């Protein structure tokens, strides 16, 4: 892909994530999406910047907040929305819900609702790639809460020991539900922990998709060429509360000034202005992109809302694989 096309592609992905989640937010009040949702509004740049550099055969594995990664990796939007509606046509046949999204054809290996739980799994996927001598890279996405877990530390040690083709992406939005990072860590330097294990690590602006893309490109390339794991800490902010569609600002949880600052740093607004500034995006192209996205969203929601629900006699399916 040409560089200019990549720049537009990242915009398209970010805008898709934003518009999909805004539509989810709009629909949530009707109580037809009967599953806990965790929105990534404000964090879109990370998934877009990282997944741009992943191939179809590369895997990602995420968390409870994984809509963005699923979309950025090319997961099927209809099946994702149908899963949110817990329909039989959902990507997990209605067994998973919003926190358990999968698209094996797109390399989305699933997501976990246990904080830190996906870090060893993704590390194991990278181990399998290495043992099978495949060139595939695994990207593991998690938040700043996940690094509190032992799995983070155990997995990083193992991945370097075995020089595994894995890139760890920490989406640091400062909050684990409502616990601020500084109530959990003595400083805001998670990347130094990774560095302590000997893994090439960095801390970057998680709202700057260009920076994310640059660092992710290098990390993916080095993992793919057998140089071992890399760690990228992306400093960002989620606009919504931890769960659902609530705005928790001003309720004693998050200060208004902090929220206002991050709204002013909206990753999409900044990037749109940037693309316009360098002449890659004009009103017409912007509208064309939006129209295309809105059409895909409409189709996905129509598909989901019109899909059948699982029937009770399917309850025991999939407990075991044949």
């Amino acid at each position: 892909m040409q560089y200019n096309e990549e720049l537009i592609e990242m915009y398209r992905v970010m805008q898709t994530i934003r518009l999909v989640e805004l539509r989810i937010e709009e629909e949530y009040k009707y109580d037809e999406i009967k599953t806990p949702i965790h929105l990534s509004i404000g964090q879109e740049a990370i998934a877009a910047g990282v997944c741009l550099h992943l191939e179809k055969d590369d895997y990602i594995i995420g968390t409870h907040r994984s809509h963005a990664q699923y979309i950025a990796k090319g997961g099927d939007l209809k099946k994702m929305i149908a899963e949110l509606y817990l329909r039989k046509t959902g990507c997990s046949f209605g067994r998973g819900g919003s926190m358990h999204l999968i698209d094996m054809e797109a390399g989305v290996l699933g997501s976990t609702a246990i904080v830190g739980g996906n870090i060893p799994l993704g590390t194991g996927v990278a181990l399998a790639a290495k043992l099978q001598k495949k060139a595939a890279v695994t990207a593991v996405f998690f938040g700043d809460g996940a690094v509190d877990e032992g799995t983070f530390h155990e997995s990083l040690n193992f991945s370097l020991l075995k020089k595994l083709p894995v890139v760890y992406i920490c989406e640091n939005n400062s909050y684990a539900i409502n616990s601020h990072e500084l109530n959990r860590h003595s400083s805001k330097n998670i990347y130094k922990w990774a560095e302590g294990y000997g893994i090439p690590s960095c801390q970057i602006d998680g709202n700057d998709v260009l920076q994310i893309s640059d660092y992710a490109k290098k990390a993916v390339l080095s993992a793919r060429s057998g140089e071992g794991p890399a760690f990228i800490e992306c400093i960002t902010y989620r606009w919504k509360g931890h769960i659902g569609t609530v705005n928790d600002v001003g309720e004693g949880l998050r200060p208004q000034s902090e929220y206002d600052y991050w709204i002013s740093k909206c990753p999409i607004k900044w990037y749109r202005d940037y693309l316009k500034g360098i002449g890659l995006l004009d009103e017409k192209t912007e509208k064309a992109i939006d129209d295309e996205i809105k059409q895909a969203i409409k189709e996905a929601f129509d598909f989901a809302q019109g899909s059948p629900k699982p029937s009770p006699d399917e309850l025991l399916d999939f407990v075991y694989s044949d």
Partner: protein
Amino acid sequence: MPWTTIEVEKQDKFFIEDDSDKSRVISYKDALYEALDQSMARDSRVFIMGEGVDDAAGVFGTTKGLHEKYGHDRVFDTPIAENSLTGIAAGAAMTGLRPILIHSRMDFLIISLDQLVNHACKWSYMFGGKVQVPLVIRTISARGWGSGAQHSQCVQGMMMNVQGLKIAAPATPYDAKGLLISSIIDNNPVLFVEHRWLYKTMGNVPDIIYSIPFGKGAVRRKGTDITIVAVSYMVIEALKAAEKLILQNISAEVIDLRTIKPIDEDIILESLAKTGKLLIADTGSKTGGVASEISAIVAEKGVHLLKKPVVRVCCPDTPTPASDILEKAYYQDSETITGKVIDLMK
């Protein structure tokens, strides 16, 4: 000297009779080794990981030398990080490999329950069957020599509560080999429960590769007066008890469940229809354990067959003591079983 060796050396080489090929007799330990060796030779996706799997002892001899034969990519030592290792093995299983993770003490399994219970065993269901997790977790329990509360547990009972998991608990060399092969070729997470005191048990084992279906128990000894359902090492104690009971003119039928998830319910109920009396012997604790589940099955489906209350012979609900005197009081054996059966027959 490793504690388990001393105790195991004291065990007699109990011989298990069965219907299998009579041409060759090997030990339970060698049967496990052979299952691993043949599985690795047959399928390049199979690999072994765990603490010390490639050291000189080779997990009590069961993996000894396999790293030389198959290379360090396929048989490798690991950090002491049971939980993440389980996740790493599960992740590798999800994308095409067939890992075998070994805990040389079953107690260490408990550290890994997040990755086993929350992840490996849920992935198939949570994602509508789109991912398989063909993962084998070998665990080894033992008893004796003051091993105490954290080096001798048999927690298979608590694991029966985990959805998406299968549990094998072979008692004979034939089953050790066949069920380990079955576990490796199965597309689900399998907990493979071994007991160190079975390692010297001898039996007929074919030299070919073969598997045994899950959920099929075996009658190890036919009898008419009482059904003894036993699990893992307690099969040996049950067979010894049955021999002693002949002197009391009591004919005991001994059933070896072989796998406890799924459980062969039919074999229990069929025997019970004949004997009307049931004693269940497990290596684990009593409350909420294997014996509790079997009792519940019988209460649901075979209470009309019972002429006497069910008797459970398990470890008491206390951590394992280290004192040899207290250990003797803690562990159940053929004497306990014999005594309970005689009481029941009165």
